[in-house]
């Protein structure tokens, strides 16, 4: 085994390029000391007709403006449209070439990849102990060996949204809000029609689909990995969770493609959806686009003998160790959402109750949000009091583990695979991957 530095490989490439090139006009400046720190995100600055989206962009702009007014190190926001941020080649290419942003947003699915690649700056020293305590559990999936590598800006629990009018028209009442899997399938069966999906689960393969599926497995006591870090995927809980989605599709209760081209609000408004497993963020979309639409939310149902939990998503801020000024970037993140200063707490509250509708990941910010009326509406109250508390953070499994589980979900839900075989295959490929895995703990 031989480590070849990126520089020498680049040099080889550059030599070739230089030899053949007419105009070698300069060399890449990955780490210029000058210029502002670049903060790549998918919120702003932008203009949007959607008041919620506009408010989110404004929040980012205001945050950076305030920092720039009071600090010597300047920050510059770069808006990357979300489809490109999530699936595009832009970020990976930039990081691979050493031109990645100084500050960026990290999802749970990408956390370990960045952390193991040594790209995420250890933020711990920039955070006061009381801040770390204030974040509490929400830091768990962002911590490696007791050190914090990314700071969450939001917590987004999953629940089931339903159309109240359709519910009533299907002869269901308030008392019929299902708490079990069977009751949910029954309700879905009653709600469905040729133009209305009974119960919608995510259908497209991706980190998001896995995220929405895990809680069903956890409810039955299933785990992807055990405490020693071996695969524990082959379990009754995993099989029954896959079976639930498979049954829902087989009986025509769950559709195989999302209604309304995945525009959730329009789908509900147009009467194409009975129930849809979605996250707390949809509350903001309903508020801004369909304020009069009557919808309700309820906790994810539970299998017999299981116990309730849900998935908690949400993005984090991370600083790039290979950036222009990693300490400055870390300093900014701590200042923005990770200090005990009033502005920092208020900023997170603003994000979670004004710009978006989320659970604040810091106790102080959550309390401030409650105080300022952010959780007064019945839906948000339900999210805060019932749905969120027993939730579990979205896991940070690396791509190979994600892919194995995704294939099991897709295969059983949409590909006609048997549940047992799919679980076996996933279990084996996770096990095989873990043998060669080197890096931080997966859980």
């Amino acid at each position, binding site marked *: 085994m031989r480590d*070849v530095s990126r520089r020498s*490989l680049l040099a080889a490439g550059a030599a070739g390029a230089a030899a053949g090139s007419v105009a070698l006009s300069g060399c890449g400046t990955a780490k210029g000391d000058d210029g502002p720190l670049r903060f790549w995100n998918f919120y702003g600055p932008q203009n949007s007709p959607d008041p919620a989206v506009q408010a989110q962009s404004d929040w980012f702009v205001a945050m950076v403006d305030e920092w720039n007014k009071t600090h010597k190190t300047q920050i510059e926001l770069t808006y990357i449209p979300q489809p490109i941020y999530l*699936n595009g080649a832009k970020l990976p290419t930039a990081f691979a070439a050493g031109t990645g942003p100084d500050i960026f947003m990290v999802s749970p699915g990408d956390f370990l990849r960045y952390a193991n690649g040594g790209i995420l700056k250890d933020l711990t020293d920039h955070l006061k102990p009381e801040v770390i305590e204030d974040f509490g559990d929400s830091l768990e999936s962002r911590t490696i060996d007791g050190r914090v590598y990314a700071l969450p800006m939001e917590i987004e629990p999953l629940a089931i949204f339903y159309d109240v009018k359709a519910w009533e028209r299907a002869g269901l009442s308030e008392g019929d809000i299902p708490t079990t899997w069977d009751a949910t399938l029954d309700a879905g069966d009653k709600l469905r029609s040729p133009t209305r999906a009974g119960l919608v689960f995510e259908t497209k393969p991706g980190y998001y689909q896995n995220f929405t599926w895990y809680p069903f497995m956890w409810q039955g006591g299933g785990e992807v990995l055990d405490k020693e870090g071996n695969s524990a995927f082959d379990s009754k809980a995993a099989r029954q969770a896959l079976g639930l989605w498979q049954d829902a599709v087989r009986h025509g209760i769950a559709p*195989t493609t999302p*209604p309304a081209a995945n525009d959730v609000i329009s789908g509900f408004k147009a009467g*194409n959806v009975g129930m849809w497993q979605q996250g707390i963020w949809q509350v903001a979309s309903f508020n801004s686009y369909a304020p009069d639409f009557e919808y309700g939310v309820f906790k994810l149902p539970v299998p017999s003998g299981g116990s309730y939990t849900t998935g908690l998503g949400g993005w984090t801020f991370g600083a790039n160790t*290979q950036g222009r000024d990693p300490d400055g970037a870390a300093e900014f993140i701590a200042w923005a959402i990770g200090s005990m200063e009033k502005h920092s707490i208020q900023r997170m509250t603003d994000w979670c109750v004004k710009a978006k509708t989320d659970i604040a990941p810091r106790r102080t910010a959550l309390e401030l949000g409650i105080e300022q009326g952010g959780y007064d509406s019945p839906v948000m109250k339900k999210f805060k009091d019932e749905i969120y508390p027993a939730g579990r953070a979205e896991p940070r499994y690396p791509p190979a583990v994600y892919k194995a589980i995704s294939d099991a979900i897709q295969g059983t839900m*949409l590909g006609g695979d048997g549940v047992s075989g799919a679980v076996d295959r996933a279990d084996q490929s996770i096990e095989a991957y873990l043998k060669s895995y080197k890096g931080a703990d997966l859980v």
Partner: protein
Amino acid sequence: MSSVATPERQQDTPSGQSTGGPSGRTGMSRKKRERIAAALFLLPDGIGLLTFVVIPMLLSIGLGFFQISGFGSYEWVGLGNYERMMSDPLFWDSLKVTGIYVVVLVPTLFIVSLGLGLLMKQKLPGTGIYRTLFFMPYVISLVVVGLLWQFMLDTQNGVVNKALRAAGLEGKAWLGEPSLALASVIAIMVWVMMGYYMIIFLAGLQEIPQEYYEAARIDGAGPWTTFRTITWPLLRPTSFFVLLMSTVAAITGGIEVIFVLTSGGPANGTSLAIFYIYQQAFMFGEYGYAAAMGSFLVLIMVLCSAVVFKATKGGRFDDGDQ
């Protein structure tokens, strides 16, 4: 000898030219001047292709021998990525999907665009308008194509299912089943590309001298006989070109459509090799592995086109009257 090979210059060029010509002034032989001119003419494109296509390709082949974190660390693994590829069922599945995709898409596209080309050659009233209409799908970017069809194929409200229901048939979840989703993607790609290859065919058809058709008409040949004995043989270079280009396009393109419509699903049903490679590289950060698979894919294409070249003698099916 192949049609893409350069025909040799006729031997009966006036003898004065081989030594005389403009070279007299400079004292250089024409041969030498011709070589220098050729080098200069080829230089800009040569350098460009070298810098922006060949070197990246060579680098990519090189990257295939490394394990790359995506953040600047490179670890030599020799053939490790290729071994991994050999035992990666997902890669072989994606090759299988690609195989089906190519085998269905390319002939369908061929027949449809040839048919349209023949139709356009009839000089029907308003041909220019039809031509534009058939070409229209090709001017739309693939991202938009994906978005558009996501709507049209919507299970509940999509226009396709609405039409089927109006006709008394049942709507389908076009993107909800693996094989149906692949068929939908193929149909969409045919729709996108048919206008383009129609133009190529039309151009090829117009190269066929009109006298041949006149002669056939006088002989009383029917449309089918005319097509079989005149159009088809004389169109072979074009057919070859279309086959080759559309096969390459099918193997290397279409990622944007897949992303928008299916993300490779359902159940990897539309996970084309190129999509899987993209996924490994840019979503999973496995650049070395992706580079290895990519190099392998390029190798397959080189072999395929070599076979096609050999089998068709570069589009000259009518072996050697020259």
